[in-house]
């Protein structure tokens, strides 16, 4: 079936189908950036594994960080169905030619930040990712179904961390509030620039890669999160948040997108550190990859001889 007919009928495009170059390029860029975000996203939380306050929290956090590695792998595999090589994608990440989500360039200063990331960052990711389960490109959509199933545990464990802290000592409560204060606005930025400043959105919508606009998704996240903040007994750092009866949505303040663009440019608090750590981990793991290859080659020779 022809590409346009397929999209018109809300069908799915599969790897060996013919597709426009722009569609392929957009998908490769988006899926790669998404995969990179998953694996870079392991760092801010990984930072707290050795200092988790209990064995229970430590086991949960390890499982979560391991999930993010898994998400990266599902997505790299989906990108490869478009004819690119994972090794090349990693190269592009390591040399700064491909991006990852700016949210991971913020530091995790306290244990409460682990809670705020689970609740807000994974929460925002879920809002972004659920519509991608219906993306027109089959392998990406299927990877997102797996990812979304796993994300809800991520969000809940974060909420639980904050709930425990906000019902703890005054110092714990203050720590939880401080984490929410720092992560709220960057979480809203995760939905990307406002619609009138998002040049590629219309094309992505026409291609069925994107299903809702950035601003619609941001609004959905705010509507979902405000009542949850009330349940936590924490405030969101935006005095303009109030229910708008007429719109049936919460109003909220203006996001400072100059901050987002600065972080994208590389001027966030942790950009250098995140990339250096990633490159270091890749280089330090080289001997493992080499040993596995050498072992496989030796076994193949033995089997050939037998």
């Amino acid at each position, binding site marked *: 079936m022809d590409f346009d007919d397929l999209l018109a009928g809300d069908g799915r495009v599969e790897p060996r189908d013919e597709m426009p170059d722009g569609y392929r390029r957009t998908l490769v860029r988006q899926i790669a950036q998404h995969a990179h975000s998953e694996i870079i996203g392991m760092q801010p939380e990984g930072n707290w594994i050795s200092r988790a306050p209990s064995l229970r929290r430590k086991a949960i956090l390890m499982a979560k960080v391991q*999930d993010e590695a898994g998400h990266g792998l*599902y997505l790299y*595999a989906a990108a*490869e*169905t478009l004819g690119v*090589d994972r090794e090349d994608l990693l190269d592009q990440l390591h040399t700064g030619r491909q991006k990852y989500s700016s949210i991971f360039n913020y530091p995790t200063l306290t244990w409460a930040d682990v809670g705020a990331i689970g609740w807000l960052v994974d929460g925002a990711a879920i809002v972004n990712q659920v519509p991608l389960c219906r993306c027109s490109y089959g392998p990406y959509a299927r*990877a997102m179904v797996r990812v979304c199933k*796993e994300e809800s545990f991520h969000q809940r464990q974060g909420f639980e961390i904050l709930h425990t802290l906000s019902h703890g000592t005054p110092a714990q409560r203050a720590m939880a509030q401080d984490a929410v204060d720092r992560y709220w606005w960057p979480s809203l930025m995760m939905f990307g620039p406002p619609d009138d400043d998002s040049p590629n959105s219309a094309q992505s919508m026409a291609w069925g890669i994107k299903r809702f606009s950035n601003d619609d998704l941001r609004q959905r996240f705010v509507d979902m999160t405000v009542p949850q903040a009330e349940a936590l007994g924490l405030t969101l750092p935006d005095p303009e948040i109030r229910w708008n009866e007429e719109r049936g949505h919460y109003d909220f303040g203006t996001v400072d997108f100059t901050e987002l663009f600065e972080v994208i440019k590389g001027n966030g608090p942790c950009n250098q550190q995140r990339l250096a750590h990633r490159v270091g981990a890749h280089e330090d793991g080289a001997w493992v990859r080499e040993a596995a*290859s050498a072992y*496989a080659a030796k076994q193949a020779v033995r089997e050939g001889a037998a």
Partner: protein
Amino acid sequence: MRDWPLWEVFVRSRRGLSHVHVGSLHAPDAEMALRNARDVYTRRQEGVSLWVVPAAEIVASDPGERDAFFDPADDKVYRHPTFYNVPEGVEHL
């Protein structure tokens, strides 16, 4: 890693069901492919059995020739039970 073959991964989620394709991964050999598949695709008891198949060994039909290839089934509606008229009142047929 660049020269590690691609493996397609199939999971049987419970006894009584067939293996279903879940994704792919790179690994230097079959044993590593199996171990990686376990960690990547069955972290939550999603499977009781795993297959890994070298992607290069899969022979696939050509999407460009799909119509010609699958056409022969198009005009054989009599292969479906709904093709047949059943008199009013006849049950369990």
